[in-house]
């Protein structure tokens, strides 16, 4: 059962096979970027997201789905928690090896979250 909503949320998980972070998109597919993530604004939305997450976990596409609170800045979605911002962007180090890592202006972001 979904908790009462305080801010918009998206659904995230890790792919079962390669373990990588994914977000549930508006079209129902799982993508590595949160840009096109399905944004839940109401409790009904939340319940639907959770149901889809449970289904995807049962069908062994993903593991450990959960909701992440985000801030919708208009141009981008920004997870409220530091940990979730890191998951969305990839490591801020070893950039030569980690292609997903980009836009690591985490310090600046903190003003938004603070």
């Amino acid at each position, binding site marked *: 059962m979904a908790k009462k909503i305080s801010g918009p949320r998206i659904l995230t998980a890790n792919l079962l096979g*390669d*373990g990588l972070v994914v977000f549930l998109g508006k079209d129902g597919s799982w993508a590595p970027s949160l840009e096109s993530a399905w944004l839940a604004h109401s409790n009904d939305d939340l319940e639907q997201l959770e149901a889809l997450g449970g289904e995807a976990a049962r069908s062994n596409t993903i593991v450990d789905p959960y909701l992440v609170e985000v801030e919708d800045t208009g141009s981008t979605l920004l997870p409220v928690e530091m940990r979730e911002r890191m998951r969305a962007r990839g490591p801020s180090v070893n950039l030569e090896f980690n292609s997903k890592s980009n836009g690591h202006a985490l310090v600046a972001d903190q003003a938004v979250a603070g």
Partner: protein
Amino acid sequence: MYRYDEFDATFVSERVDQFRDQVARRVKGDLTEEQFRPLRLMNGLYLQLHAYMLRVAVPYGTLNSKQMHKLAYIADKFDRGYGHFTTRQNIQYNWPKLPDVPDILEHLAEVEMHAIQTSGNCIRNVTADQWSGVAADEVEDPRPYAELMRQWSSLHPEFSFLPRKFKIAVTGDKADRAAIAYHDIGLRLKKNAAGEVGFEIFVGGGMGRTPMIAARVRDWLPKSELLGYLEAVMRVYNLNGRRDNKYKARIKILVHELGAEEFTRQVEEEYARLDAPQGLPSDQELERIAAYFAPPAYEDLAENDAVHTQHLVDNKDFAEWVERNVAPHKITGYAIVNISLKPVGGVPGDATSGQMHAIADMAEKMSLDEIRVTHEQNLVLPNVRKHDLFAVWQELKEHKLADANLGLATDIISCPGLDYCGLATARSIPISQDISIRLGDIKRQRDIGDLKIKISGCINACGHHHAGHIGILGLEKRGVEYYQITLGGSGDETASIGQIIGPGFSSETVTDAVETIVDTYMDLRKSGETFLEAYRRVGAEPFKEAVYATH
């Protein structure tokens, strides 16, 4: 080095087959994640922040060149071309894919490696002084006993389900390079008054949210009685340890709650009762294990090598590297080469596959095929002829591995923190990089002298911050990272726990605070006094004043 016997080889290869089957069943959906999780953890496979992470054991930190080549091969073929050496003398891969893991484990088994006992509430991979068997002042090589304990603990069903994970470290030297006082059990080989070698036994050390220095429970125990005595320790723990509360379940809490004296009394009582401890090895078995650690084929060399001496005179950079990174060897004409994995601004403990291959080649050609991993996240070529030191240095330089900073301010320990770890509260690697760049000038580092900075990304303390002369702990408040500083910790034979100096610092100001602390030390030190000695003389006050006056 220890070689698998038939039993080990069968055991490991059966485990690989079993895991291959479990992965197939998981992918097909015959196993749920809840059912699969404990199985993958038993094989060293975690799900971290961004991906799976595989932790591969390097028992007592000893590798041969074939094994190092294999680690490099795995990094290339199944990961992103690099690996992270940890404070537990393991290597972690950050990006393995689940269907590949059985293949990775099979590759590891080919070179007698595995990922067993790197997770769970069992006796973990036993760690050892990285200079075991070669240190000039060593009483005896402790690794045969580490191997003995590995076999003993692997086979003991009773010890696979402990109240909590259990870590053992061994050293054969007076100088403690294995942080034994910070382990559940720490063992030091030493001689008694009669000149016989035995074990000094410490119990109940640990990091985490309740850091503790281990209590000495036995000043000297005959070597042959080791397993019997450990069995008594484990029984007292198993009977009394708190299984009800994860945070209180470590043996350190039991030792603390009972008091060292009462704990020791109970162990001795249990030990006296144990007339025939289970599974004690025969003398033959001990000899069989010890034979695997027999010294390699050293040559008969002179103390000094003219070519080497000339290079020292001719090349200042080389001489400085030798001074910091090369240590005396117990065999005449040989030296211990310490390879820093801490380039200024780099990621502590990381090595690329190219670097791993290069080190493996050097080990084969110039270190009698041996490599060691240190708990300070560096590597060692333990058997280098003085004659070859210059060639090794040049080769290391070519692979960006010749930083002459061993034990200096930029030889920082850092856990993966929030860049990789699912439990982290803050990032630790970028802070270590920032500090490393700030203090990176080698002249300044040499002037500062011995200094251990250690950083953890959460209270679990994988980065040993409690044992840092300067310790940094990353925390988080309302979505913002901040950093707490401790001073005066030490993980050596004078072990102590660092004390918090006051309110924490932001990610932008923590490096300034560290620099202020270092500058304060430079101002107040007496001639020849290290940072730790100065801190122990003057206490925290002058440092606090300096740091908080400017904030």
